[in-house]
């Protein structure tokens, strides 16, 4: 079973989403399932999403051009970003941009090759759920994801410059 970590939640929380890597032409959605579709399929089926019980989520590659996707971020309830390798950090910028540039308010999910030690940074880049690979330590992941983080930069939702808060506190 895939392990989805959400902010402030514990292991094994019910996660309704089913991610499809491919969607064939004759695909018929089940009436009781929430899907995450590849971007091309999502765009093809938009805006009616015939046969889906609700608007599906969408997943995209980390290095994709975001500019043309404004409508996707307005409509999709969930955007998932694929991390091709844990040393490839392009998804950290992609997530931040989706939040910052498009003021995306829905669920932002990271999946793919990730380390549990990266969850703190993922959260600060605006991700609020992560699909943890099987070989990664769940406790560390949860602890990192929910840690109360002191930092010089804040996070993408509440960024600040390093000294700003410290001097206004004087």
């Amino acid at each position: 079973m895939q392990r989805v970590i959400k902010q402030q939640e514990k292991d094994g929380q019910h996660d309704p989403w089913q991610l499809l890597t491919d969607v064939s032409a004759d695909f018929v959605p089940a009436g009781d399932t929430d899907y995450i579709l590849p971007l091309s399929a999502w765009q093809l089926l938009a805006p009616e999403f015939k046969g889906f019980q609700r608007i599906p989520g969408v997943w995209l590659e980390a290095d994709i051009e975001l500019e043309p996707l404004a409508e996707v971020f307005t409509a999709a309830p969930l955007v998932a970003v694929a991390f091709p390798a844990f040393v490839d950090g392009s998804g950290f910028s992609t997530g931040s941009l989706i939040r910052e540039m498009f003021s995306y308010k829905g669920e932002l999910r990271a999946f793919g090759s990730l380390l549990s030690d990266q969850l703190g940074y993922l959260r600060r880049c605006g991700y609020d759920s992560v699909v943890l690979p099987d070989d990664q330590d769940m406790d560390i992941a949860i602890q990192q994801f929910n840690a109360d983080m002191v930092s010089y930069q804040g996070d993408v939702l509440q960024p600040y410059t390093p000294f700003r808060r410290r001097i206004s506190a004087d």
Partner: protein
Amino acid sequence: MFPFLLDERVWICTLCLLFFIFVCLFLSGFYPYSAAIPDLPGRTGLQLIREYPTMYQYDELDRQVVNNRVQQFRGQMNRYLSGELSEEAFLPLRLQNGLYIQKHAPMLRVAVPYGMMSAQQLRRMAEVCDRYDKGYCHITTRQNIQFNWVKMEDVADILDTLADVEMHAIQTSGNCIRNTTSDPLAGVAADEQTDPRPYCEIIRQWSSLHPEFAFLPRKFKIAVIGAAEDRASIQLHDVGLQLVRNAAGETGFKVWVGGGLGRTPMLATLIWDFLPQAHLLGYLKAVLRVYNRYGRRDNKYKARIKILVNSLGAADFSAQVETEFQRTNTEEFQLTGAELEHARSFFTEPAYEQLDADACSDEDAPPAYHHWLRRNVRAHRVAGYAIVTLSLKYQGTAPGDISSEQLRRAADLAERFSFAEVRNTQQQNIVLADVKRSDLFALWQEASRMELAAPTIGTLSDVVCCPGGDFCGLANARSLPINTAIQQRFDDLDYLYDLGDLSLRISGCINACAHHHIANIGILGVDKKGEEFYQLTLGGETGKRSQIGKVLGPSIPLDAVPDALEAIVDVFVEQRHEDEPFISTYQRIGKDRFKERVYATGH
């Protein structure tokens, strides 16, 4: 009127009470830097508030950030040692904390932000050398400190020990934003327009544990200067910043992007000639974002930002950055006047005395002292003061190596003569920035005793050299024996002085740790069918202008290198006009004459 005041018992009692209250306040932390400051001769406690007058000092947030990171790293290290964390997963985590595995032992690189260290920090380095290493450490070409013989299981403890003196190893290696480097003469150079250190400190904080930029395609280096002469080689950095003023008198930066050495050496390109200072972080963020999303990850040797800038073209690259900058440069990322003021408040002028400008000590001192004055002492912007370079190029040791004893003595010298602070240089030496001219002779005597006074700064024997094949697992060839051979061949001081300014740098492989590309004479170790060979480059320079050296010809074996060097120097001496420095002669006559001579001897 108050007859009880005349009673001396009341006085004594009151004084005791006051003293008691003072001590309580002091111990309870009212005096903020009590823990961070050693006993300085001749100064009293209360004057010492913010006195390392020229250094950043941590507040509660800095301490928390660093301590949290040490704890996190301790956990990661424990999981690695117990086998829970794979080698592969631990690799980027340990690199982000400055830990390499090399030939004989792990190597820990400690960050020295923009090269500045207090006497107290030097002493702590000495303790680490003695307790966890082999009694010495190494100053790198990016102003950091390296310990070459640490044990994995000690690293977390070392980090704790560093945190006590406000130091860390965060982002000193790995594919992230590295230590920000700067002009080692910041604040004291006569040609300085704006002190770069407050900006370096802001960049240090902003880039430390930035969530978005910890897994970049490749390492990312930033350097900042505020003077006319570039003593930090900013054009060799991924981002180089030079503080300037515009016509309206406002402060901002010239921004260069895409410099670097390694396999494809490149000078950075100017992409903005006036970035207003308030937008510094917003703009850096935009540059890094474009790089993080579009930089290549398929090939390690094509992954630096220089390749992206080159493949897009500077105009296209800067247009992309500009778009990114405009769309996300909101108020939250802009530096306010108050913040900049706060950052500047750490780098105030030390308590300079009014001194007689030419109060130089001891006219009848030995000639060696006068040599040292000429080569190792520079003009200071304040009358009566001088800038002194302590040389780490003593015959018989590896360039940049410094023993724990020397570290302690350097700390003493800094306290006695230079406001208790030093700077590491890109040339692997140490600068005392604020020495009274009248103290120079005494300083020279002390430094000589500690083998820190080799009077050869800027000469051919002020060699910059990486550890090479003796220590480094990546090396193609050794570099230290070349250094030794050269030191022996050119050991006549008068001859060295006649040759004048001449830079020589030796790297053991194309990673170019010694920056051989920017030396007047560069030497690079290459592998030829399993044997150590060396490629020579001529004409590199840094400082007044930056230039990448040109390969002279086919590589040559180890034992031919000293002769080749002598041939190059001979051609220079024959062709030189008066006191011309090597680089001018080279530029005037080109490389062919050198090439003919070097290869005439039949290699």
